[in-house]
């Protein structure tokens, strides 16, 4: 017993020496290791008679448990301390900048994608055509003969190549895509044709290159009422307003008859443009029933088929919807402007996900 007493004393004095994980381990080995003082006493139990053994064992286990408890609680304490030291040493200043990649989509691309989303939902497909066009496709087939005064209003760019003896042009509108599509296919047609167009004009409100989207519907029944419904649906969805104010005005395009221009009602609130309110009007598109001569030119019988066409200026749409006041900035390649008016690449317009955020 005296031996056990001295061990207990030793334990108390050793406890005071424990100050870290190493000294704790040293203490464990001293008492509970293979050759530890308690371990040796435990081995001696076997040599005792049962009565003595029971009493000794009880005492010995008590001491052993107390050492174990001490070691476990100290061990937790030291681990916690280590962890908090690690955490303290690993601190980062996250207010420092990290490089964020920030590419932007041009507003023209965004608006064309919006227009495509709306019209493909209405069963229109997207047609394309070349930007260098034949005089025939750009004018003559569209019922605009050589001396038609409307030709002069187009300020056409010419190149040196010819088709059938006429100089080729940079297309002045997306309407020649109507001709190409109708010559290639068979009615019915429901298509839009977004793209670049060119006119020899360069001032504050005109750029020599701009974008249009053409629309064409040819079947046996589509009339001006459908045209109105089509444009109203489009404007509602595009401007994301239930109440777009539209005004149809008679106008003239050689390739539609009757022809109309459509104004949209808006008001200005500071620099903001509010669509669907107020009593200012802005012309945004031209439209009409496809002229029977155009149908004849693409071998479609105008007594059997009819339909409508429209052409919208993409820049106008972008300016109105996103409050861009200067047309020329679209083509100025100014990265500051692009950062401001450009779009996040994954903001892909869709009917299900919404056109804009």
């Amino acid at each position, binding site marked *: 017993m005296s031996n056990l007493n001295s061990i207990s004393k030793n334990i108390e004095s050793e406890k005071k020496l424990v100050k870290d994980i190493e000294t704790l381990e040293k203490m464990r080995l001293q008492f509970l290791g293979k050759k530890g003082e308690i371990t040796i006493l435990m081995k001696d139990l076997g040599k005792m008679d049962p009565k003595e053994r029971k009493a000794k064992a009880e005492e010995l286990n008590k001491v052993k448990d107390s050492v174990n408890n001490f070691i476990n609680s100290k061990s937790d304490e030291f681990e916690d301390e280590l962890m908090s030291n690690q955490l303290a040493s690993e601190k980062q200043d996250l207010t420092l900048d990290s490089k964020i990649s920030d590419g*932007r989509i041009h507003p023209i691309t965004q608006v064309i*994608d919006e227009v495509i989303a709306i019209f493909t939902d209405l069963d229109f497909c997207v047609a394309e055509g*070349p*930007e260098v066009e034949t005089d025939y496709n750009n004018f003559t087939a569209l019922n605009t003969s050589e001396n038609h005064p409307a030709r002069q209003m187009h300020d056409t760019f010419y190149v040196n190549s010819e088709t059938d003896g006429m100089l080729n042009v*940079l297309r002045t509108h997306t309407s020649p895509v109507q001709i190409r599509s109708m010559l290639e296919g068979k009615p019915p047609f429901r298509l839009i044709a977004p793209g670049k167009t060119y006119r020899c004009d360069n001032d504050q409100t005109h750029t020599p290159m701009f974008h249009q989207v053409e629309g064409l519907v040819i079947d046996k029944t589509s009339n001006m009422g459908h045209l109105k419904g089509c444009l109203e649906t489009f404007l509602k969805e595009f401007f994301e307003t239930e109440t777009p104010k539209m005004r149809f005005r008679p106008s003239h395009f050689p390739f539609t008859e009757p022809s109309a221009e459509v104004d949209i009602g808006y008001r200005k609130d500071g620099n903001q443009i509010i669509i669907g309110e107020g009593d200012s009007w802005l012309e945004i598109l031209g439209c009409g029933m496809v002229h029977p001569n155009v149908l004849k030119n693409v071998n479609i019988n105008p007594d059997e088929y009819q339909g409508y066409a429209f052409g919208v200026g993409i820049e106008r749409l972008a300016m109105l919807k996103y409050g861009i006041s200067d047309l020329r900035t679209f083509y100025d390649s100014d990265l500051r402007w692009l950062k401001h008016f450009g779009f996040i690449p994954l903001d892909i317009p869709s009917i299900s996900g919404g056109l804009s955020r």
Partner: protein
Amino acid sequence: MKFTISWLKEHLETKALDEEIINKLTAIGLEVEEVQDASALYGDFLIAQVVDEEKHPNADKLKLCKVDIGGKVVDVVCGAPNVVKGMKVVYAPPGAVIPINQMKLKVVKIRGVESSGMLCSEYELGISDSHDGIIHMSENSNVGGLYIDQMNLNDVMIEIGITPNRQDCLGVYGIARDLAAAGIGELKEIELPKFKTVGKNPINILFEETSNQKNYCSAFGSRYIKNVKNCESPQWLKDKLSSIGLKPISALVDITNYILFDYNRPLHVYDADKISGDIIIRAAKKDEIFLGLDDKEYNLSEGMCVIADEKQPLGLGGILGGSLSACSTNTTNVLLESALFIPANIASTGRKLFIDSDARYRFERGVDPNSLNIGLDRAAKLIQEICGGEISETQICGTIPNNEHDISFDLLKNTNRLGVEIDQSEIESMLKKLGIKITSKKDNLICTIPSWRHDIHGEADLSEEVIRLKGFDAIPVLPVRTEKRINEKILSDSYKNSLRSKRFLAHRGSNELITWSFTSSKDSKFYIDDQKLEIQNPISEELDILRPSLIPNLLNAIKKNSSRGFESFSLFEVGNQFFSDQSGDQKNIACGLRAGIKFEKSWRTEKSHYDTYDVKDDILTLINHLIPQNKKIEINAGAPKWYHPGRSATVMLNKKTVLGYFGELHPKIMKFYKIKSRISVFELFLDEVPTKLKKTTNKENYIVSDFQAVDRDFAFTIDKEIEGKILINLALKADEKLVKNVEIFDVFEGESIGIDKKSLAIKVTLQAFDRTLNETEIQEVSAKIVDSIQQKTAGVVRS
């Protein structure tokens, strides 16, 4: 086209308010562009009289005036040098807004003296630039009366845009007719002038060659008026022309202008005494010289129509009068012309000579043949009234064509076209008011189109007349969605590739630009061999050809943005480049540029710049985005001449299709642009990138090995010219079953291994599908790899 409400009302009997008229004009397709209301502008201004004036007590140059404004005398301080006692002046009372600067007048103290209102100069009223002194009104002006009454300004001027088809509305009378048809009042009949004639036209007028005549002039009508006295026009005529912004010249000229704008009938008046012999209407000779009224000399070409005497051209038919036969104050005998020229000829002559005149504008759109006689007679009568003289009989050379024609108008079809049924009686009434005669009824109307409407050829045109007069509000909004979808394919593959490329590149941190499809031939010389790309009429020298590449405009964008302070550039454009000026010879390209600082030096990174490997990543990840899992892509050294020959490559698909290029731009281009940094570029031909090739949407079979993979590293010293991909391919082929992947992880060049050598270190991953490889197997494969590379490249394995 400008006119005033009072001028309009000479032809239109109406009680409609000005605002109704203005709204209706736009509603029927005569779009109002500007309204100038003089009574709103000058309504507050009064006629006043200076009853006394003395020097301002505190200012040398100012005067203190007592001004009678009609029963009341007010004090006005005035700085004008010409103000004198008794002078009648234009007075702006407090509250009036000065037109030139929009300043609202208040009673103010000027140098301590109260001034109530202002005496105005022409400049302040916005009438002229003259501000030397205040306006001196005539002695008979009514003191206390309104300025607008005194000046007959009580009128609203309207400017409308006329679409090219509505040539009939290029005169006030035609506008009145259209308004009447739309329900704004009744059209007043034109009173046919009556006068006595004296004998025949003494000048002989003939077509030189009647066979060609139909190409340029169908009829030439004229009257000779002798013993006239050209003078200043009477006030009513001067006021009329001034009201639409025209400058009165002399009675003879003013009368023809008046008829032009009133009745849409171009006329010309020659000084008959300056005509030598006969008048000959003929085609111009090549290089014939013509002196225009505008004092310019025109070099004519064959086919243009001239009105000539025996010596020379006196007028360019239907476009411009000549200076040699112009009327002056001494003119005593005149020849008055009212002719009918052929639109196509007028258009082409006007275009070639760059002459824009009111006559050309009307003739090329088509003039009412029946206006020839009425216009001639109205002008002759006015000349006689104002200038005196005796009028000859009318002489007409050629024949006035009858262009009236019938259209059968099916009302059912009209309904199907417009989407709304409009009452037959309403249709008939509207069309009749336009001058269309309707002879047969029931569902088909036989419509006789009058001589002044050149734009109505078929039923669709009549539908337009009906709906524009009825108003588009009558058309219902019908659903655009249809029951059956008709389009199977929505977007072409090329279009899909464009859309995807833009989003992908922007997501990689690049900015989308849209630049002109034109560029400068100077900037483009690096990209062109002998392609024909010129634009005939470029907007400027900098934009004189179709772009043969997207690079030049993007380089200019880099230059521009550098000057804005940017130092890091990641730009791209997706658009067409042109291979020639033939229609359709264009390709859709995605072109990206990276230049300048990639990482700024920071607490975290060293400063680094973009290089060719950045654009290599761009083009390869983009291709992978467009055609996922395609393994047939190959990189071959070298690219077209605008690339650095040693730092560029071509991307091939299946060994035969060129998908694109990437690399560093040639240093000589950088030198040309004076750009210091290196610029890395890629160009991808989007039309060449195949979209879905397989029929199934399933992915490839999923095969992976769960047995352990081992990596082995090798280093070889090889010839500097040998490309890394050769080593990779040799290692892959050494054992196609076991070699799963090969990567180059180090490149070393240095004198220690020889200047024509380099060392490449590769990491080879080995793995089998059915077992873990043992050391012997690994050794065997390694030996194969080393042998193969040493044999094929004459390289030496480094240990």
